[in-house]
């Protein structure tokens, strides 16, 4: 039977995330956004409460939450600040390749420290020459005895400037495209890693994003995840797992925009009455509520599919795409309802638009999500 009610356990996870979001994140969100500050003290607290590494199984010290439970938490966090949430959940993305591709011994070695102590990890796939064309990546992995030597550059790496561990995708032979890709675990202090500057971004300004250059970084073969040529599959399966929480992140931003706009519409008067009494505003609010609901339900559906053990590529692509497009439109409508005030940085809604924009781009641009959706869809008709 279909059931949308949450269990008491899920409600208590949601309560924890909501409390943390509203007491720790929200009060600092505007200042961190303005200053482009990476509030590591907040991320440490999130770690202490167990709100990081949500996907790491309990045998390695994590919570091993289902994707649906992760989504409930991520939506609450993102309601307070999308950028901080991106940095908090970046470990899930970076550690997922280890969960999917590592041997039990590698898992113990690389996952346990993240649950025992506060550490950040970064997922290094995107390169300056291409993000969506992941199979065409150029970072080289050259075998040298028992080691590989990594050479190349990764960009837009979340938490890159602060990470103590990288999961890196490189190729033994670019002409092999996907078949040449290998995944590695690389400690942040490996000689030859050069961290670029922290990027100055439009939104998600409490998150840190940077370039990581690998200048002949020597990596023992024991730090390879899976076999040569399995890296691309690990990367894609990772994104299948982490795409859905991005839908939840977008939903949180959208819900915040709707709440701000609805409350404001009851206070703000024009033509002698609250603007909530004008149908032009009511219709906008109704459209926003529809989009928020659709975003959340599609996200839950995708999470449910994955938690049943299915790969969920189609559902998660649809969810991520609809939720992020919705977040942008709902944030845009919220600004419109606030009018001139909405355009001012003193009010909270313009930040939501800037933060929402990234959700259409990262973890698979929405154009890629649509290609994936169409491919999965057409397979059913062929």
């Amino acid at each position, binding site marked *: 039977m279909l059931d949308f009610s949450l269990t008491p*356990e899920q409600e*208590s996870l949601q309560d924890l995330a909501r409390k943390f979001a509203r007491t720790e994140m929200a009060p600092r969100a505007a200042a961190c956004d303005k200053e482009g500050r990476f509030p590591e003290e907040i991320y440490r607290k999130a770690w202490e409460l167990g709100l990081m590494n949500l996907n790491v199984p*309990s045998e390695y010290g994590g919570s091993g939450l289902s994707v649906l439970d992760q989504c409930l938490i991520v939506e609450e966090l993102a309601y307070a600040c999308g950028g901080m949430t991106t940095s908090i959940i970046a470990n899930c993305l970076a550690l997922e390749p280890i969960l999917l591709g590592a041997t039990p011994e590698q898992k113990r070695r690389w996952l346990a420290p993240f649950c025992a102590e506060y550490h950040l990890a970064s997922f290094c796939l995107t390169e300056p020459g291409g993000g969506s064309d992941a199979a065409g990546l150029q970072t080289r992995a050259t075998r040298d005895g028992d080691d590989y030597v990594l050479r190349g550059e990764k960009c837009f790496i979340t938490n890159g400037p602060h990470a103590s561990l990288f999961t890196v995708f490189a190729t033994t032979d670019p002409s092999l495209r996907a078949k040449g890709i290998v995944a590695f675990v690389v400690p942040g202090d490996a000689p030859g890693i050069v961290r670029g500057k922290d990027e100055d971004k439009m939104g998600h300004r409490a998150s840190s994003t940077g370039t990581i250059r690998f200048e002949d970084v020597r990596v023992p073969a024991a730090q390879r995840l899976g076999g040569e040529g399995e890296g691309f599959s690990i990367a894609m399966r990772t994104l299948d797992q982490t795409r859905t929480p991005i839908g939840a992140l977008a939903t949180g931003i959208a819900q915040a925009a709707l709440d701000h706009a609805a409350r404001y519409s009851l206070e703000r008067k024009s033509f002698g009455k609250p603007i909530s009494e004008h149908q032009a505003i009511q219709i906008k609010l109704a459209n926003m509520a529809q989009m928020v609901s659709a975003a959340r339900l599609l996200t839950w559906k995708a999470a449910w599919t994955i938690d049943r053990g299915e790969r969920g590529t189609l559902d998660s692509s649809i969810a991520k795409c609809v939720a992020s497009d919705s977040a942008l439109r709902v944030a845009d409508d919220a600004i419109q309802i606030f009018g001139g005030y909405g355009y001012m940085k003193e009010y909270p809604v313009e930040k939501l638009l800037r933060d929402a924009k990234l959700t259409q781009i990262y973890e698979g641009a929405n154009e890629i999500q649509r290609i994936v959706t169409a491919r999965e869809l057409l397979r059913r008709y062929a």
Partner: protein
Amino acid sequence: MEIFVLLKPVPEGESRLRVSADGRRLDLDGVKFVLAGYDESAVEQALLLKESAPGSTVRAVSFGPARCEEILRAAIALGCDAATWVEGPSEAAEDPMVVARALATAIAPGGASLILAGKQAGDDEEGLVPAAVAERLGVPSFGHVLDLRAGPDGASLRFARATEAGTERWECPLPCVIGLQQAWNDPRTAKLPNILKSRKAAIAKVAWTETAAALGAESRPTNRPEAFALPPPRAGAKMIEFKTPDDAAEQLVRALREEAKVFP
């Protein structure tokens, strides 16, 4: 130390409250109950004492209908070792004397060396239960307590009480019942893995039939609420239009004095 913490489920602060159909009480149907206010301070204090006296245990205890379960699990997630749900019907939970008798009956055999509670409940703020439990158990009771520490001999407590006139300092032999002031300590937040563990923790249950049999006629509430009225909706704010700050201040003072009559 065997520390017991008495907890009451109270409606979440953001709840939309309605009056019940019979007009006597709040309609608590569908309301979310939480561990809140003074009770959070009591749990925090119990955990601090436990941490300062290794070997101590903390047991959370709550009287009432099934809604007690959630706050007992919340207490376990915060670090309490065990929990007891003293089952009781809603009508019994409305009478603080019945609550106190039922709690005392459940606690008595447990060998409590210290019983902590919020100085009053986070919802009705009656503040009767801790003292009534102490009376029933025949042990001393203090309310409005803050800055609580175990005495050097392990058989007494030292604490402060905030009064209108100033701060009192006390030493009291164990066992005793202490009603704690809110938020003088900074209650911790439960960690996610502990929340997950708390869902699986066993909660001891004292059946109402058992309590009612032990209490006999004393299990029946002697008080019954007559009527409940929500506060009248607040009138709208008055906006003052002004040209200069001095002008605004002058108008504001006049409105406070002549219209709101806040001061003469």
